[in-house]
């Protein structure tokens, strides 16, 4: 059971959050310009990394804010938490 440090509320139990999958997948600005393959890339393809992964989480039973998390999926350690719109920490690339 993770302890997640919501950037707005502080450390809370995982049961207050819901996961939103991989982070930094930007919705295309002009979807109609895209081919089926390009759209499918945005819509379906996810990295699902074993190791350091950038993820979106939502404090759904708290402040309802979405934010980003850097998590090592091999040991579930959360390495960093940052707000939407902020640049991802560079040291985990």
């Amino acid at each position, binding site marked *: *059971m993770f302890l997640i440090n919501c950037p707005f509320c502080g450390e809370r139990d995982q049961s207050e959050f819901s996961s939103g999958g991989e982070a930094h997948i930007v919705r295309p600005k002009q979807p109609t310009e895209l081919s089926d393959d390009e759209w499918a890339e945005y*819509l379906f393809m996810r990295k699902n990394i074993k190791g350091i992964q950038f993820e979106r989480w939502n404090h759904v039973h708290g402040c309802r804010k979405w934010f980003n998390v850097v998590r090592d999926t091999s040991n579930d350690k959360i390495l960093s938490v940052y707000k939407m719109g902020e640049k991802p920490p560079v040291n985990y690339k």
Partner: protein
Amino acid sequence: MPNYRIHKTEYIDETKRVSFKYDGKTYFGYEGDTLASALLANGIHLVGRSFKYHRPRGIVSCGAEEPNAICQIGSKKDLTEPNVRATELELYEGLEASSQNCWPNVKFDIGGINNFISPLIPAGFYYKTFMWPKSFWKKVYEPLIRLSAGLGKSPTEPDPDIYDHKYVHYDVLVIGGGVSGIIAAKMAAKNNLKTLLVDDKKILGGSTIYQNNESIKIDDKLSSEWLKNEIQEIKKLSNLTIKTRTSIAAYHGYNFLLAKENLTDHLPKEKKKNKIRQRLWKIRAKKVVIATGSIERPLVFNNNDRPGILLSNSINKYLDYYGVTCGENIILFTNNNSAYETSISLHKKGIKNIIVDLRKSASSELIKQAEILGIKIYFNHVVTNTFGYRKINSLEIMKLSEDGNTTVGNKIRLNCDCLGMSGGWTPMVHMHTQSGGKLDFRDEDQVFLPKENSEDQISVGSCNGDFDLENIIDKTVNKINKFLDIDNQDYQDTNIICSKENDKRNIWLLPNKIPLGKTKCFIDFQNDSTAKDIKLALKEGFRSIEHVKRYTTTGMATDQGKLSNMHALGIIADTAGVKMGTLGTTTFRPPFTPLTFGTLVGRNVGKFFEVVRKTSMHEWHVENNAEFENVGQWKRPWYYPKNGENMHDAVQRESKAARDSAGILDASTLGKIDIQGTDASEFLNRVYTNAWSKLAIGKCRYGLMLNEDGMVYDDGVTTRISENHYLMTTTTGGAANVLTKLEDYLQTEWPELDVYLTSVTDHYSTASICGPNSKKILNKLFPNLDLSDENFPHMSFKEDKLKNIDCRIMRISFTGELSYEINIESKYGNSLWKMCIEAGKEFNLTPYGTETMHLLRAEKGFIIVGQDTDGTMTPSDLQMDWIVSKKKYDFIGKRSLYRSDTIREDRKQLVGLLTDDPKEILEEGAQIVSDVKSKPIDMLGHVTSSYFSPNLNKSIALAVVRSGKTMKGQKLIIPMENKNINVTVSDTIFLDKENKRLNA
């Protein structure tokens, strides 16, 4: 009656005699006893029958690792509990226990016949035998296995006991209150860290607390005396909480642990009443110290499972802690030094004993003591067989060959009434591995040890492979100082004298002249698997420990193989010729010992099992006999039976009344989201498929929301209340998810939009009145409101007051009738409802529930998201192309609507179905085909909604059918169990295609 209680100890209160029943017979013990110690004091070893061969089995251990002494507690239907370990159950007045896994009784057991046919029950027996024929499984094999398995009985009535949950946060959690745990807790607490120390026993102190050997001393005191002093000291520490009778069940990530505290299980029956029985602690600790100790290993030799054969250290504990001897003529069989402690203790209490030691020779303080006392020691000998049916009465030993692979010389027969086994110690690494920690293998004494890999978790003491007292104390102190980053000097001058030799001769499967196939060398006592089974599994090609374990069921009983896993691994390694450390181990999973369901559930039983949401009108519905339907967490009126009506009759009456005159529905549960901000219109443009910019203030519009994959996600009517203010409604079940999804887009994709979302579902109650007379009823409620079609047309909204209370009135319709929804602040919901009912009396205003609502909308072909859709339906599939804006550049899911897959013409599409026999009502979910003769039958789709329409006087249904759009008028077949139903594809709108009734 024999009495094996041979001396007084401070842990047994001989002034408090306790009577208890075991297998129907009354016995006596004392306060401080466990059921096991009390049975042993009464000379009872035989406590059950083994799982597969039904061999007589006795008490083996004194703790959580016990494989045999598993009992059923109590006989009451609601209070009985299976799988309780007699070695952990504290004795109390009135305790009733019975042995499990034997019928008709423990002494005469019918399944014992399996023992004689055992060559027929090899490893994988269940897999091999019960495979064929298939039909035999349900009727023959399963009942047979269940009958003979006999792993206790579940209670058949609800548990009347109270259970509790508690959340706590600590700086440091110490698991285990033996020497190392006590030291760790003291160091942490004295350093101002908020500390919790838990131990599963009644008192702290582990195995040192009853240690009384003169050769083991701390600061010139017996180690037990020294430890008692330490315990007194830590009890004074203000920031240390000590919880005894509390066992850790699970160690999850981020130092989140579950512990079970036993509060009343040890109390006499009458004192248990109205008290919390067990409490589940949910612990978050910044740092965790694991000090769970180690358990003694049995030895694997022929017939090592007879009653009267125990672990050597358990014999010691029964003697020194409980004052009970396990026999009068005891043999201790060992491969290491620790059995000598037991031997010396026994000797001092006057119990005759001899030692059989696998080692060629050995010398230590303890061995010297034993020799001085004149205790007979057979070095370099091995037990090759035991005798005695219900209890051991003698055994055979033989000399070991030089390499230890075989036996030599003559058999020596020795009489005994008890045998102690000591195969060395296994560190309890369960907590470490549960937390995600890895293990290292130490070759010299063949143990798995925790690999330190975390800054917030550490193992100390014998669970870390430190076995002698000096090593335990020194290492614990050093490690804790480092772990907690402190500099505690309390133990710097502690002077420890102890026996330090850890010399051990480890042989996993002891040699025997008898061929292995004819021996019974048990590895897993509870699941009855033998060394032979393991070898057979390897012969049959199994290699992975996880596979061998499942195939032979070794380690898969309720004790999770605490005594057996190491031997299984060892024998696999020896047989396969690989190093044990390379095999890995099986996974230790929570719970460490079985938990009751009551503890897990806590107070969340009965009406607290799940959150229930009720509308403001709920009481009225109850008073008016509504049957309720669960929609998400909501309780919604389903239908209102009158005068003994069944559901069908009630729904037919309600549906007819709603169209003939007027009906009223509690629509409060629909999700409501308040949308405000200067970009609110743009936001709606992006989330719905249709256009919103031109919606006039005071008007309502139906919207369809898609997922980015183009599939219908939710629908509802949204009202423009003012320039920058909308009220969105969602489906009842989808409300929370829609809000989350909208927030997601707002916060992550379109943060530039000035839009604010607020859930107001619970803030407003909604009464929806429909039918040709609804306008008249509205007029009575709101006499000043101009209800004319010109002033208040369909899909528009007005504000008015009802007795001075603000109302929002929407003229919208989900039934196809002239219809109004009145929204009022929730606290006035019930009054609003009653006023509507009162005003509607003269028009036969009929309350209707969700079932009638579904029927009425189906007559009009309106979809229900989640019933007629399933996450694979596009608007086009639903024949709702009209709601998809062609002009809008983008909205959620737009691009997906012309992916190669979504434009396929043979997708399943929504159609209407009419049965050839208008009285025949289709079953929802039924499959639809065109040809029943082809094999395999081509499935075209399924029925999604089906009703008998009282207004049309015929059966109607909605369905999704492959290429359905092009099939109007075509005949299809619904094959049912006993007949084929003929149907014709129709339009989805069955009633009032011209929408005349909306303005009737």
